[in-house]
């Protein structure tokens, strides 16, 4: 809880409008940041000597429950103080564009490619944004909820009982 307040105050002091929402989710302070300011906030979180979130643990995508928005989730870690936070940003699914974090962390490169591959989030300024795990010819973004797991055109799997 202290960490949540501390980071919240630090961000608000620098970017008064950036935080949309903040909460404590289990052991993680979570910050919902506006898409327009995500890059500046991440840069601030990384370079501020006090906060010093120098380690990008994870970067991944998510689709909101109403399926109208896409999100990108950053897990940041300060190894010296051993504090971790989660930063989220949501944006319209029809305009999935967000600045890249590769200039801050080289590690974001493949993680952003993976997010693009599965969710179709276009990271502006990414050095080489192309599919990484799926084949290049694929024309869908498979982790979006509009694409169900099994091929709906198949009729050889008719399992009414379990709702396939």
């Amino acid at each position: 809880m202290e960490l949540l307040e501390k980071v919240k105050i630090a961000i608000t002091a620098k970017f008064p409008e950036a935080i949309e929402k903040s909460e404590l989710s289990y052991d993680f302070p979570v910050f919902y940041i506006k898409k327009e300011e995500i890059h500046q906030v991440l840069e601030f979180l990384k370079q501020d000597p006090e906060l010093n979130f120098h380690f990008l643990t994870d970067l991944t995508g998510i689709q909101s429950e109403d399926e109208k928005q896409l999100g990108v989730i950053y897990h940041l870690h300060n190894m010296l103080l051993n504090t971790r936070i989660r930063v989220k940003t949501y944006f319209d699914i029809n305009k999935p564009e967000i600045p890249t974090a590769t200039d801050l962390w080289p590690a974001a490169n493949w993680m952003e490619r993976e997010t693009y591959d599965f969710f179709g989030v276009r990271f502006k300024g990414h050095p080489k944004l192309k599919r990484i795990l799926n084949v290049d010819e694929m024309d869908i973004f498979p982790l979006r909820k509009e694409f169900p797991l099994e091929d709906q055109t198949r009729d050889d799997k008719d399992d009414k009982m379990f709702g396939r």
Partner: protein
Amino acid sequence: MSKKENNSNHSNNDFVEEKEYSTLNLGPTHPATHGIFQNILKMDGEIIHEAEPTVGYIHRAFEKLSERRPYNQIRPITDRLNYCSSPINNMGWDMTVEKLIACKVPKRVDYMRVIIMELARIADHLICNSVIGVDTGAMTGFLYIFQWREKIYEIYESICGARLTTNIGRIGGFEKEWSKETWDRINHFVENYPKALKEFANLLERNKIFMDRTINCGPISAEMALSYSFTGPNLRAAGVDYDVRVMNPYSSYQDFIFDVPIGQSGDTYDRFMVRQHEMWNSLEIIRQAIKNMPKDEPIKADVPDFFLPPKEEVYNNMEALIYHFKIIMGEMDVPKGEVYHCVEGGNGELGFYLVSDGGRTPFRLHYRRPCFIYYQAYPEMVKGIMLSDAIITMSSMNVIAGELDA
């Protein structure tokens, strides 16, 4: 291997050296890469000028699959991430769900998990280190030490019946009490393995040929390793003492005394040595766990929603039958929420980011796979070194195809 001749035309006046690089496909399947990785190398003779890895050859859409599976049925998927140490993945997943449903497991379960996870770590490091030996031309260590991995697999087998894809443990504890045979095997392993490991260490650790071959081969600085989000032995070899077991203790790791070995230069030799030391540490942890194992505690937490009731109750007791049916059909009640839980896997911080919307399956499950994240530094690490050094750099990074491609 195709190699073009370097025919640069030059006059005496303006000497412009024009280099022509040859392209070499290392992989997708190649006996020296231990898995399905493709690297398109731009070679200047024997020196690598540029490497471009292609990943995804065994991509199996685990994250999409997980969105359709009840919580109990995701564990078999995690087996197939880092298949050299699948119990760590299994238990990491179980602990993630336990965190979500706020379930406290007994100390005894924690200690039993620690024993299995440390055995898995030994198996993982054993494969990696002995394969570094093979890639440098020392087959003996590999052939000799591998029977000890077999002993570890026998221990898994006597607990859960499987060897490689173990699916060991359950949400809330273990499926049943370990037999006497299991304990005998574990004790036998702890007693006799040190001798074999000592001999393995004698074969390689101070071996002049091995040292010449691996020191300063594929080094990475601590700063670079951090910026590429390295974790696990690879980061520790670069000199950063980050270990999830110490920083964010899970499964009662705070009760154990062990040290975190670190290297200096982050080269192949340091990575090898860090893993060597970690095997000794793991043994020490197992000894402590056996010694301090709490007696007279159950082997499961009280979570009837997730833990299958014993069969004799299912047939005689209405409530047990209902739970049995619900669990098998995957109709468990989970709260809404999102958790991130990480464990120290065989090759780094293995994280599970789980978003639940209260339904029967996760809304979103993301695996933080250490391999996938640190393998992207590979082109940088092999730039300007010889092809044969690139091979041992890769095997010393312990890149596991299953985890890389998920």
